[in-house]
C-alpha cells in the first residue's frame, strides 16, 4: 500500500476457533502490510461494541472493520462510523440493512441448510427399515442470532423431507461445553435412537464424542453405530474428523475469502479517501462433506489450519 493506515478491528468475541482464526487472519494480514491494528473485544456485548467503536473514532482511526454482535447493532454502528466520515466494513455477520458500509455477508441459515441437506440424504440412504428417522440438533445460545440462523437452516433443510423425519429433538448448549455435555447426555439417554445429529458449532464435537463414545455411537462412516453427523464453522477439528470419517459434513464460511475481501475493500476506500464506501460482498459458503472432501478440502479454512499443524499446537 502507498501509505500505512490505522485500522480499528472490533470483534464481538474470541471464544471459538472460528473467531480466533478470523482474528489471526485479519490482524496478521494488516500488520504484514505495514498497517497499524487497534483491537477491540466486545465480549458479546453490543453496547460495549458501540462504545469501543466510538472510542476508535475518537482516536482518529482511518478505517474500521467490525465483526458485529448482531445485524441490528451493526446498522447503528455503521451509521455511527459513516456519520463521522470513517469508512467501515462489516465482516461475517450481515447488518439487517445491507445498503450501508462494506458488507461481507455469509448466510448462516443457508450454509447450515446445505450441510444438513447432505446429512439428511446420507441418513435416508443408510436407513434400514422404513420408519421415520430421528434428527437431533444442538442449539447455541438463544440470545445469539447466529445460533438462531443455524437452527433455522437446519429446519429448512429437513422440511424438504417431511415423510422421512420425526420432529427434531432440540438440545440447548448455551455455547458452553459443560452445559452441552450435560444436556446432550440427558437427551441421548432419553432418546437412545437418534439417526442424525447437527451441532450448531463445530467446537462442540469433542463434547459430542465424550457422550457418544461410551455408548458406542462414536463410529466411523460405514462402521456399526455410526450416527450421521455434521456441524457448522469448518474448523480444524471438523476437518480432521471429516477425514477420519467420524462426521459427514460441516457448513463452511470461507473465512479467508471474507477476510481478504473485507480488507481489500476497506483499504481501497481509505486509499481513495472515500468516507462512506458501500458495497455488498457475498460469501456463498458451502458444505464440506465426505463426498466433496477431496476436491474442496483446501477451500475450508480449518483444513488449511490443520495442514499447517494447528491441532498439534
Amino acid at each position, binding site marked *: 500500500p502507498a501509505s500505512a493506515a490505522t485500522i480499528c478491528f472490533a470483534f464481538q468475541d*474470541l471464544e471459538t476457533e472460528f473467531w480466533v482464526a478470523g*482474528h489471526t487472519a485479519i490482524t496478521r494480514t494488516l500488520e504484514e502490510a505495514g498497517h497499524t491494528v*487497534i*483491537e*477491540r*473485544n466486545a*465480549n*458479546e*456485548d*453490543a*453496547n*460495549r461494541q*458501540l*462504545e*469501543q467503536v*466510538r*472510542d*476508535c*473514532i*475518537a*482516536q*482518529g482511526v482511518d478505517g474500521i472493520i467490525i465483526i458485529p454482535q*448482531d*445485524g*441490528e*447493532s451493526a*446498522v*447503528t454502528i455503521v451509521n455511527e462510523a459513516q*456519520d*463521522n*466520515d*470513517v469508512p467501515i466494513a462489516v465482516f461475517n455477520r450481515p447488518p*439487517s440493512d445491507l445498503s450501508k458500509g462494506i458488507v461481507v455477508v455469509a448466510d448462516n441459515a443457508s450454509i447450515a441448510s446445505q450441510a444438513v441437506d447432505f446429512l439428511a440424504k446420507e441418513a435416508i440412504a443408510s436407513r434400514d427399515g422404513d420408519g421415520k428417522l430421528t434428527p437431533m440438533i444442538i442449539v447455541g445460545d*438463544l*440470545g*445469539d*442470532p447466529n*445460533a*438462531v440462523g443455524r437452527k433455522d437452516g437446519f429446519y429448512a433443510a429437513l422440511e424438504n423431507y417431511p415423510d422421512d423425519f420425526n420432529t427434531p429433538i432440540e438440545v440447548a448448549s448455551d455455547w458452553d461445553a459443560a452445559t452441552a455435555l450435560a444436556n446432550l447426555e440427558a437427551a441421548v439417554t432419553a432418546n437412545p435412537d437418534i439417526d442424525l445429529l447437527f451441532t450448531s458449532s463445530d467446537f462442540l464435537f469433542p463434547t459430542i464424542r465424550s457422550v457418544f463414545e461410551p455408548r458406542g455411537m462414536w463410529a466411523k462412516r460405514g462402521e456399526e453405530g455410526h450416527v450421521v453427523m455434521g456441524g457448522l464453522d469448518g474448523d480444524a477439528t471438523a476437518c480432521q474428523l471429516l477425514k477420519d470419517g467420524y462426521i459427514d459434513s460441516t457448513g463452511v464460511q470461507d473465512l479467508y475469502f471474507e477476510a481478504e475481501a473485507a480488507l481489500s475493500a476497506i483499504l481501497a476506500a481509505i486509499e481513495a479517501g472515500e468516507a462512506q464506501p458501500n458495497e455488498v460482498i457475498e460469501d456463498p459458503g458451502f458444505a464440506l462433506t465426505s463426498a466433496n472432501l477431496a476436491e474442496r478440502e483446501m477451500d475450508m479454512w480449518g483444513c488449511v489450519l490443520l495442514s499447517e499443524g494447528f491441532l498439534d499446537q
Partner: protein
Amino acid sequence: MTDSGPRATVSGRDEFPAAPSVRQRAMRLFLSDYFVLYLSLAYFLVLVPFLPTLSNPANLANILSNMWPLLVVAVGQTFVLTIAGIDLSQGSVVGFTSVIGAMLLATSASPDVLSNAPIWGLIIDEAGGPLANVPGGVLVAIVAMVAAGAMIGAANGLAIAHFRMPPFMVTLVTMIVISAFAIFLTQSENIRNLPESYIQLGKGDIVSVYFGEQAESRIPRRQIHSFITYPMLIAVSVAILAHVLLNSTVFGRQVFAIGTNRRAAEISGIPVRRVIVLVFTISAICATIGALLYSTRLEAGRPTLGDGNFLLDVIGATVIGGTSLFGGKGKIIWTVFGVFFFVLLSNTLNLMNLSSFHIDMVKGAVIVAAALLDVLRTRLIRGEAS
C-alpha cells in the same frame, strides 16, 4: 469494633509539629467522600501523557456518554445494597423493558425476522407497533416500560419482604425467567425501526461544541462534540432525585435503618416491608430507564441487552464507589464516582491498544489497585482519628 488500624505514635507526631496546611489539605482531599473521584482524576492525569487521545474532546464526550446509562442502573442498585439486598435481575429488566418499548413503538417490522415471535400479529406487525405513529406514543410507551419494570421490581420486593426469601435467590430467579421471557417474546430477534423522537432520548444533543477553525465551510461531524445530551439530562436528574430521596427524606432514613438493623427497625415501627418493596421497585425502574438509554442509542429493542458481565459492572461500580454489600452504608455520589471510575477504566483500556490477550489482566489489576488505595485511605482515617 476492634481498633486494629495503625496508630500514629507520639514521636511520629512530633516530627511534624505543625503540619503544613498544604499537607493537611491534601490529606483532607484524600480522606473525603470524593476519594474515588480524585482517584479517577489522578488515574486520568497519569495516563494522559501516554494516551494523548484520552483528553481529546471527542474522547471526553465518549466517556460522558458511556457513563449515563450505567449510572442510572447503578443508582438503583445503590438503594438495594443499602438495605443489605442485592438485585441480580437488573440486567434482565434492561433487556425485557427494551423489548417492550420497541415492540410498542417500532414503525415497521419485517416478517422475515419476527414472524415466528409470539408478539407477531398480536402486538407488532409489518406496520409496526400499536404506538408507532401515535402522537405522544413515545411517552405512553415509556410509561408502559416503567410500569412493566416496576411490576417486576415489586414482585421481587414482595417475595423478599413478605416471605423472607433471600434477595440473591429471588432476583437470580427473576433474572433467569425475565431474560428467557424477553428472548421468547422476540424469538431471539431484535426489534428495529424505532421512531426518531424515541432515539433522540438516547443519542440526541442539546448543546454541541466545535473546537476547529471558524472559517470552515463544512464542519466534519467528527469534530462536533456532544456536550449536553438527553441521556445526560435524564441520568443527572435521576441521580439528583435519588440523592435527595436517600439523603433528605423520611424514606431515605428508613432505608438506612433497615440496612443497619432490620429487626430494630421493625420494632421501632419502620414499615420495613413497604420500604423493601419500594426499594426493589426503584431498582427495577432505574434499570428500565437504563434500558431506555441503552436501547435507544443502539436503535433497537434487544432481549439480550443486559446480558453477560453487565451486572458485574453495575455492582462493581457501586461497590467500588464505597457502598457496602452488607447494608447501611451507601451514597449516590459514591456511585456516581464509582461509575465514572469504571467507565474511565474501560475507556483507557480501549485506548491503550492492548492486545485482547492482555486486556483482562490489566483490568483486574487496576480494579485491585483502586480498591487498595481505598483501603489505605480507610486506615489513614482511623489513624488520624486515634
